[in-house]
């Protein structure tokens, strides 16, 4: 029997964790002599107070949905994929290669092609750690972390030596052809006569991310493969006994995971920068871990958590840009949120469980 009702587990625990993180952040801001209230106000207005802020918040959210889903899918197979960063990097490479390969006539053609490239490259980057885990038992945490560094080195090599336009000193590819330009949400809004989020990077990929959430939910809870993934995640001997091949499921789960992480590149490489830069992923792969933990590895939870981190990113950016609060503090705030919602989850959950148990006993008595 569950110790506490589901709503408390899903909503109350993260909420209390979040409030605790905010409270400690406020103390830190007080300690450096700034006003926490002003800081919060700047963050909220900067991230949610205008269509402009929303445009950035949703852009970051899109990144985190993909990396969060990537971690969540692998997690259901009890695989801890820390390589989202590298998989997204290599996904970006796939997007860039495809966008630059042809003079794309229209984004409607370029987008599916680039999505395939992003997913394939991301999945390929997850494949080697997956096969090493499945066949040789090399721990996936270690190998995926190592593959992040290899991805960085590979990307660096490609951008510095091969894909950089002649004479440019910026280690980045050339700009993608105009036909590969994805519609920004602001352009779509303008088409129906609304001025919304001008000059913001959020683009059509946001909707693809939402669709990905639904598809992942269907996959995990409504398909045979999803059942096999979950069965393997719960107990490998039981799965084996039921005729599920651990090798096959491990590899498939990691391929899906890597593909999802790679798909993030559609947003940041094709949608925003429209060229591949070295620093394209910017830690979104690691944020994805926190997003998945906080979202309880459920696609809807991932969506909400991604939104929260999108807010923290954009609000934090505003804070650093327009106030005297140093940017290191923004990292502190983000770290506190990750610490409380991800790592220190049980600190809140256990007392909560005790409270609910006590309440229930009282109810029975």
């Amino acid at each position, binding site marked *: 029997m569950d110790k506490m009702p589901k709503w408390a587990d899903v909503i109350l625990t993260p909420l209390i964790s979040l409030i605790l993180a905010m409270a400690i952040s406020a103390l830190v801001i007080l300690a450096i002599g700034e006003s926490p209230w002003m800081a919060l106000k700047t963050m909220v*207005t900067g991230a949610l*107070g205008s269509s402009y802020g929303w445009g950035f918040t949703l*852009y*970051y959210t899109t990144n985190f949905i993909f990396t969060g889903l990537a971690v969540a899918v692998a997690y259901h197979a009890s695989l801890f994929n820390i390589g989202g960063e590298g998989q997204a990097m290599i996904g970006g490479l796939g997007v860039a290669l495809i966008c630059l390969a042809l003079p794309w006539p229209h984004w409607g053609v370029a987008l599916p092609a680039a999505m395939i490239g992003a997913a394939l490259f991301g999945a390929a980057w997850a494949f080697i750690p997956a096969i090493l885990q499945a066949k040789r038992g090399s721990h996936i945490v270690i190998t995926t972390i190592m593959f992040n560094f290899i991805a960085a080195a590979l990307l*660096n090599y490609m951008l510095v030596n091969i894909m950089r336009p002649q004479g440019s000193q*910026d280690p980045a590819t050339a700009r993608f052809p105009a036909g590969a330009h994805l519609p920004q949400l602001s352009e779509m809004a303008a088409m129906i006569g609304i001025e919304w989020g001008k*000059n913001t990077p959020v683009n059509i990929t946001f909707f693809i991310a939402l669709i990905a959430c639904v598809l992942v939910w269907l996959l995990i809870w409504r398909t045979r493969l999803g059942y096999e993934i979950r069965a393997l995640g719960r107990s490998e001997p039981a799965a084996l006994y039921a005729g599920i091949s651990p090798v096959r499921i491990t590899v498939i789960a990691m391929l899906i995971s890597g593909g999802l992480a790679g798909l993030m590149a559609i947003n940041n490489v094709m949608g925003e920068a429209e060229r591949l830069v070295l*620093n394209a992923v910017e830690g979104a792969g690691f944020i994805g871990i926190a997003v998945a933990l906080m979202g309880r590895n459920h696609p809807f939870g991932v969506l909400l958590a991604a939104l929260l981190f999108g807010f923290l990113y954009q609000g934090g950016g505003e804070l650093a840009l327009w106030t005297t609060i140093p940017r290191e503090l923004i990292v502190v705030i983000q770290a506190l949120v990750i610490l409380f919602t991800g790592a220190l989850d049980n600190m809140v959950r256990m007392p909560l469980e005790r409270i609910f148990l006590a309440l229930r006993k009282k109810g029975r008595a």
Partner: protein
Amino acid sequence: MSFMKTLMASAAVTAVAGGAALADPALIFDLGGKFDKSFNEAAYNGAQRWTEETGGSYKELEMQSEAQREQALRRLAETGANPIVMTGFAFGNTLEEVAPDYPETKFVIIDAVVEQPNVKSIMFAEQEGSFLVGVLAAMASESKTVGFIGGMDVPLIRQFGCGYAQGVKHQEADAKILANMTGTTPAAWNDPVKGGELTKAQISQGADVVYAAAGGTGIGVLQAAADADILSIGVDSNQNHLHPGKVLTSMVKRVDNAVYDAFTAGENLETGAQVLGLAEGGVGYALDDNNKDLITEEMKTRVDEVSQQIQSGEIEVHDYYSDNTCPALSF
């Protein structure tokens, strides 16, 4: 919302005031951050010098993420800052798009060329300054083996390394040059421990002068060199004082002057591309009390002669950007 309103209001006020009131200049630091002991910090020092001398004020921003570049540029332009100076080649592509939307605002970009009528592009001829310190390194080296330690493996750092190697070879045709890059991620700009380890590795291969072009990582290079009692060469700012008598010289890149000049020129800034090399005083080698005993009269005469020859075109220093290759060193 009040915050936005303040911004809007200040934008409106500046717009109304127009040319009457002098607009504040602005400085945008790249992702490395303001106090990176190197490139961004040099820009900051230039801006501070301007503030101290003129009593003026300026706006400054530090980038947090790639997506913010455009946001920062637009918001500063809309609040009426003029000119807007940004450090780093990574802004090039964004500025190309943003600049035409604000024809009244002057932009200055350091380390990249953006061809727009209201943009001034400042490039430094790092290869020329590095050539000079290469000549000095070759003369100071007894083992005729010298080292180069770069930060992140990007074309900019290869430009430094290539100029240095050419200088070494120019002076000492069969000298051996050891070259290492610290890494391939931005962490390579700030990894003094690894810088120190690379230095020790190069020392064990016989290097007795090591040139660090690696941002914060260079601190570790200079430290390891001083500990092993060999000579090192600093970069960007004058780093001779870090280990007096142990730092042979520093290849200075006067980003501070570029920022200072842009701020001083204000709205009347002349746009266009500008390359600051030896002739313009944009790069050079540092000579002060800390290293005057290391640079002998002979070395000084020689290096000044080479400097003259580069300026007159007698010596042509190969530009790595021109063809992405280096005749004196392979990376």
